[in-house]
Structures are given as C-alpha cells and as structure tokens.
C-alpha cells in the first residue's frame, strides 16, 4: 500500500515478479550463465547505486527476502508471479510455476499465480495446461514466443498450434495472456520478438486480454500502433519504468506515448522483481510528472488518478480482484502491521 502525503491510499498490484534460481548450481550450460548475467546487467545498469545487489543474492534469493522486498519494504499489496521455464538453460528450470506455487501457498492473499504453456509441446502440453489450471486455478499465463525448444528458436501466436492452446485457455477461464515481447531473450529472427502476431490473436480472441510485457520494447512504436487498434491489448511497464531513474527524460517520452496511444486504463505496473524492487520504482513513479514541453506535445498527464490505475486498479480489473475486500483480508492477516496506525487499524 502506498499512502500519499494527503493520506490517499493506493492499492498496488505488481504485475510482474519472479522467484527464480539462476545460481551456478542450477545452470545447465553457458546459456544459463549468460542469461542471469544479462539480467544482472539490466539490474546494475538501471538501479540507483543504493539498490544494487551482490551478484550472489541476485542469482538466487530466498522466499523471505522476496516477501520483504515486495510487501514490507516495498509498497506492493499483491504481486503476480510470472513463470519463466528456460529448461534448456537450467536444470530445474529458471522460475517455474511449481517453484512460484510455494510462494503462493505461504501467502495466498498476496500472490496471483500464473502458469505458462508452449504450443510446441503438442497434445501432451495441452494436457499439462489442463492439469496446471486445475491445480492452481489459473487466471493468467506468461508466454515467451522467443524461447528455445530443442531445434526451434521460437514461435508465433498466430501459428496454428498457438490457436489450439489459446482456445483451451479460453475454455479453462485463463483470460490474461502475458506475452514477453521484450529485449534480449534470444531472438534469432525478427519474427520471434515482433509484435505483429499480437494483432492477429487479439482480433481472433476478443475476450482474452493480451498484456504485452515491456510494452513491446524494443518495438514500442509497432506496439503502440497495434494496441491502439485492439481494445484487449495492454502494456506492461516492466523494464520501461526503471528508466525513470537513469533516463527520466526518455521515460517521460515513453509513458506519454503510451498514454497518448493506448490511454491510462491499459497500462500495468510491474517491477520485474528480482531485477528491480518496487520500493524505489514506486517512490520515483509517484513523485514523477511529465515535463511541460512533452505534455504540450502529447497532451499526456500523469495525474494521481492515472497513477492509481497503473499501479493497481487496471490489474485488479483484469484479475477480478475486489480491492476493498482484498485490503480487508490482508489487514486481517496482519499484512499492514508495519504501516502507520491510520492504515492498518481496523475500520
């Protein structure tokens, strides 16, 4: 919970978090080593110096550290766990649904557990998706269209097998399809991280929501174009938001373009934990205003109402979270005990 100086409470849903194991013991090959090093470069490059972690902590953090960083030190009320399997690089996978499920089990009111599928897994994969959905009552999945799988170096959402999986997801009540369309996950071809396939499936599956993580960077321009035309396409801010510290000017341009093209109701906050932590991101975001010259150009303003939507209300809508009821649950469980009396007192 973030509380403004005036006492406004902002309910925060962190749309993008991971509970990973990138440690050398779990690395299967050089790719596993390079993968976590690349994440660490993102972390080191964009974090304020005071927020930088040691490499060892970054490679593998425990559940308590994660809980503290998100909900005690940070302002998150809830967090979405997004899996990243990468079983070709890591012995037990990097960040699987099963690993994340342990976090969810310990703190059921705090986490939303998402699953994953890969259309290249055929009918076995469809069975697995059914089982995963039954076990964990999934409302969302995270997809990596550029993930390696044996000989294949990626797939498109518009491929025929992808359609079968999306149809299955629809039947299972999995409404939120988070798609990693972002930088540096092994794109051999442009296609693997092109956002055009989103356009295709967003039209074909009108009652699914497509949340494009990292707002399509490095394809922000193509993404804005597609998201404008499709009502069910959303932007996840992970990776874009940390620029608020190192390059506030660029961040201002990006957020004002997003507001201009897709509007305040379709942008979701995400820390991408453990690459970044929500505390400093949200502190900076709440203090941030789009400079007057950019507002003059785009007409975009980051009002308190808009910030509130981005930080939590938009995700709450997608995941059917009743914010007031959820706050009561968290408060009853002592989840706000670390906050000032005014916030955690029963009312």
């Amino acid at each position, binding site marked *: 919970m973030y509380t403004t100086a005036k006492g406004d409470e902002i309910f925060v849903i962190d749309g993008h978090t991971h509970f990973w194991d990138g440690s050398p013991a779990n690395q299967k090959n050089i*790719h596993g080593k*390079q*993968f976590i*090093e*690349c994440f660490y*470069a*993102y972390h*080191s*490059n*964009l974090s304020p110096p005071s927020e930088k972690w040691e490499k060892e902590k970054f490679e593998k953090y425990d559940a308590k550290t994660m809980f503290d960083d998100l909900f005690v030190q940070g302002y998150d009320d809830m967090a979405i766990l997004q899996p990243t399997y990468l079983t070709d690089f890591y012995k037990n996978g990097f960040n699987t649904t099963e690993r994340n499920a342990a976090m969810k089990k310990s703190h059921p009111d705090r986490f939303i557990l998402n699953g994953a599928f890969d259309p290249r897994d055929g009918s076995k994969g469809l069975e697995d998706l059914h089982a995963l959905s039954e076990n964990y009552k999934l409302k969302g999945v995270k997809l990596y269209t550029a993930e390696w799988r044996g*000989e294949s*170096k990626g797939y498109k959402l518009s491929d025929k097998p992808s359609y079968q999986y999306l149809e299955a997801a629809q039947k299972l009540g999995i409404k939120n399809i988070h798609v990693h369309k972002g*930088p*540096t*996950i*092994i*794109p*051999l*071809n*442009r*296609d693997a*991280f092109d956002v055009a396939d989103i356009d295709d499936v967003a039209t074909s599956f009108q009652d699914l929501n497509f949340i494009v993580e990292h707002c399509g*960077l*490095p*394809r*922000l*321009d193509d993404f*804005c*174009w597609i998201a404008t035309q499709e009502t069910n396409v959303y932007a996840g801010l992970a990776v*874009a938001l940390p*620029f608020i510290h*190192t*390059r506030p000017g*660029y961040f201002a*341009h*990006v957020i004002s*373009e997003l507001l*201009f*093209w897709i509007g305040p109701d379709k942008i979701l906050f995400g820390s991408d934990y453990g690459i970044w932590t929500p505390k400093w991101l949200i502190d900076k975001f709440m203090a941030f205003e789009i400079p007057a010259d950019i507002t003059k*150009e*785009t007409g975009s303003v980051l009002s308190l109402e808009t910030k509130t939507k981005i930080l939590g209300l938009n995700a709450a809508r997608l995941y059917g979270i009743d914010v007031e009821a959820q706050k009561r649950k968290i408060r009853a469980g002592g989840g706000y005990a670390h906050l000032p009396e005014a916030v955690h007192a029963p009312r």
Partner: protein
Amino acid sequence: MAMNALSATDTAAPDWPVADRQAELWACLSTVSDPELDESVVELNFVTKAEVDPGNRVHIEFRLPTYWCAANFSFLMADDMRRAVSQLDWVKGVSIRLGEHMFADQINAGLAQGLSFQETFGNEADGSLDELRQGFLVKAFQRRQVALLHHLLAAGQPPDSIVGLTLAELSTLPFDADGETLLRRYLERRHVVGPMRPDASAFIDAEGARLSADGLPRYLTALRRVGVNAEFNSALCRGLLSVRFDLDTPFVPDAKAAPVAAQAVAATRPATSAQLSQG
C-alpha cells in the same frame, strides 16, 4: 589474439603510412549503422578492433550489448561493415569477428566463408536480411525526416512551403550547423522511399506520397513514436554495453581521436580486449 599494429607500421610502404589507412578504415566503419538504432557502430562502441595488416587485409572485431542480441541484426551489421570496407580500393581482404555472442561461432564461420545469413543459419532463419534491412532503413528515414521537419517548423518555415519543396530547393535553404547535420542525415536516407531527382518532392512519406500541409501535424504525431522507440533502445543498448564491458569512460578509438601519433600503438582498446578474452 590481438595483432600488433606496430609491426604493421614497420612493414608498410613509407609513402603510404599504415596510419592513413587505419584512419580511413575507422572513418569507413563510422558510416555503418546499427540498423535498429540508426547510429554508427563506432559511435556505439561496438567496434573493438580495426586493423590493417601488411598485406592490406583488414581485421575487424566487434561486440554487442548482450550475449543475446538478435543474430540477424548481428549478421547484418557484420555484412554492412564488410560491404563498406570492401569499397576501399586498397583493401585486399576483410575478416570480421563477433565476440562473446551466443551465435558467435556460427556467425563467424558464416562470415569467414562469405555465406549469407540464410546459408549460415539454414532452417532456423526465415526471411532474408534484405527485407529486414529495408524495414529498418524506412524507420531510419522516418526518424530523420521528423527531426528535419521539426527543425524547419521551429525555424519558422510555414507548413505549406515546406511540403512544396523539391529536393533541389531544400538543399538551397539556409541552415545553421544543427540544421546542416539534420539535412545531411535526411538526404542520406531519402533514397529509401523514392528517387532522388532534383525536381522530386523533398518530403514524401514511406509510400512515396507527397506530404500535405494540413496533414502535417498528424503525420508528425504518428511518427513521433518511431523516434521515441529508437532513442529508448539506444539508451538501453549503451547502458547494457557499458555494464557488460565495464566501460567507465566513453571508448574513443585512438585512430579516430588522434590521426597520427597514438593510433599505431593500439587501435584495440587494451582493457576491453582483456575482458573479451576472459569470456
């Protein structure tokens, strides 16, 4: 791994110092851009070595911000460097090596054998580089055009006279130093969307249609996101490269900075080569 540039100097013909060829080589590489960022691969610190050996063969090494940078972009940049350098009439051969990249072995083998991207990656590659190259050239054109149009509007040129300009007329307008740069960069890419006849419209869109004065504000708004995207990616790439190779200070290749004195000693930046070879 590093060749000794000094020995190359020693054996070069006295009337044609290797230093000049070295400088020419760097200047040539400066004209090659990262297709996506539309910035010079030299400016971006991607090129770590560019040397001329006694046989006038050129040896280039480059690196990228991440181990995962797209293989096709990597190949495209290498291919562009090879094409650019081969234009120099004294060049007898070009070797290009990409360092610390997940496809380094495949790409380097393909480059060494003069294969295309398609031939190098076989079934894993779909689509030729030409299409990709064209797509990014159009984006670069758009970005440069928007910058020039903003400059002209800010200088007080009315929209209806701007859209009426021919290429010949555009080149005769008075520009300040910033404007000159924007004009030069625009003209470098203008051919991507239409023929460069002097009487052709200076400002056309990606489909080759002349811009209209009324539609200009909307056109500029629509293209603004192309520029924002490129700047954002550039910031990301520079930052990642800097962390990955621990670049405390901006890398200025010696051959570029100091035409004669320093360059023969090392066109390779010693600290960087050491890190590269550590893997």
